[in-house]
């Protein structure tokens, strides 16, 4: 049975594991799961996601409380605490361009070793990245990313784990959902198998291991 309680979910979250999270600027990061992880008190997490959220929104909660040892993200501009921790040497940060990062996550989820991109090849410092020539053009080798646990937010799940997202809260979630050894979905609504149209399903349930019902989203503050 994939539908579980928050307590059951937290049994797979341990100190030092790699956690990948869906969401973009806090929107679509699973709030109930993040609050639960915070409350459990795990530390030294290796986080992978689009950004550092805001200090009290999204993944930012965990980062602000010093629970992360490292972070792979495209930017941390919306979370000054993350910047401060990075400057103090308390948080190791690796930046990837946003489009490169999501492709690295997808390639992990798809069982690929990585992708070739030319983004940043002639500008941003390429930090020991290998360069290859393909069809006469140069590309960076960008390695795939996977995680011990992926946490995502969706609108609906059936009990098999098929996921349907809502508007722009889809963002990085379908990619993150594929890249976890264990994938946990927090959803607004859990429906019986057969209640979702096979055409509307974005994440096939085979990628999803656990499902919990959301206690509600917390990212409206940006404009409130």
């Amino acid at each position, binding site marked *: 049975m994939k539908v579980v309680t928050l307590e059951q979910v937290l049994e797979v979250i341990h100190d030092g594991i790699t956690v990948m999270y869906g969401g973009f600027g806090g*929107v679509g990061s699973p709030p109930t799961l993040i609050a639960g992880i915070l409350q459990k008190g795990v530390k030294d997490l290796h986080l992978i996601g689009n950004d550092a959220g805001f200090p009290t929104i999204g993944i930012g909660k965990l980062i602000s409380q010093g629970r992360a040892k490292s972070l792979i993200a495209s930017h941390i501009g919306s979370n000054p605490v993350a910047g401060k921790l990075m400057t103090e040497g308390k948080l190791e940060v690796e930046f990837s361009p946003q489009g490169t990062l999501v492709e690295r996550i997808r390639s992990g989820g798809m069982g690929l070793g990585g992708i070739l991109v030319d983004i940043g090849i002639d500008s941003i410092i390429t930090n020991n990245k290998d360069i290859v020539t393909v069809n006469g053009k140069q590309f960076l080798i960008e390695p795939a990313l996977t995680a011990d646990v992926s946490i995502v937010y969706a609108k609906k799940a059936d009990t098999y784990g098929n996921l349907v997202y809502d508007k*722009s809260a889809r963002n990085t979630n379908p990619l993150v959902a594929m890249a976890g050894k264990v994938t946990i979905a927090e959803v607004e609504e859990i429906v019986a198998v057969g209640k979702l149209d096979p055409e509307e399903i974005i994440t096939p349930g085979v990628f999803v291991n656990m499902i919990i019902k959301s206690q509600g989203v917390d990212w409206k503050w940006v404009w409130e």
Partner: protein
Amino acid sequence: MGMGIASRERIAKRAAAEIQAGMTVNLGIGIPTLVANFLPASMHVMFHAENGILGTGPSPSKGQEDANLCNAGGEPITVISGASYFDSTTAFGIIRRGLVDITVLGALEVSEQGDLANWIVPGKKVPGMGGAIELAQKSKKVIVLMNHVSKNGQPKIIKTCSLPLTAPKCVDLIITEMAVFQITEKGLLLLEIMKPYCLEDVIDNTAANFVISKKLKTI
């Protein structure tokens, strides 16, 4: 940007004049967001958001915001007819594939060759490059909207960027409160001067060589 609302709107309005019906356009945060306000309502332009939308529309009225419908800056938006939602890989696939006709963004520095620096101030601000790098490197036309000078009064249009580049040779047009420059194969071309500034103001506040267009306008 520490710029008055009138200047901001004037810059945004000038940028809007670059946009044609049917185009795919990405607007960065800050002044670029205002550009949409200066397009005719009847003009069908597809605004692209990096999180995963093509076809964003105006801000919703107060109370009508949808927590799950935001642009890449996290602001609540609406969508227009013909819009689609997708995941962020497709959003960046559209960018890398060169399908964004115009990207409008801010800058810390622009060089006379069109090099763009807008993401990092070493030792001060290291926020990460986000998606600006893809937009700058791959959009068909890159328009920079910015103050002509920095807070300290230093020119931001310079011979060579001192800050790390977001992307080299990518900027096509610079619009400031003072002037509009096109960046051509041969370097900067001054197209327009914004009243009440005059040519001397532009010369004094630009630390790069530029050619004055034969069709120079004061607007």
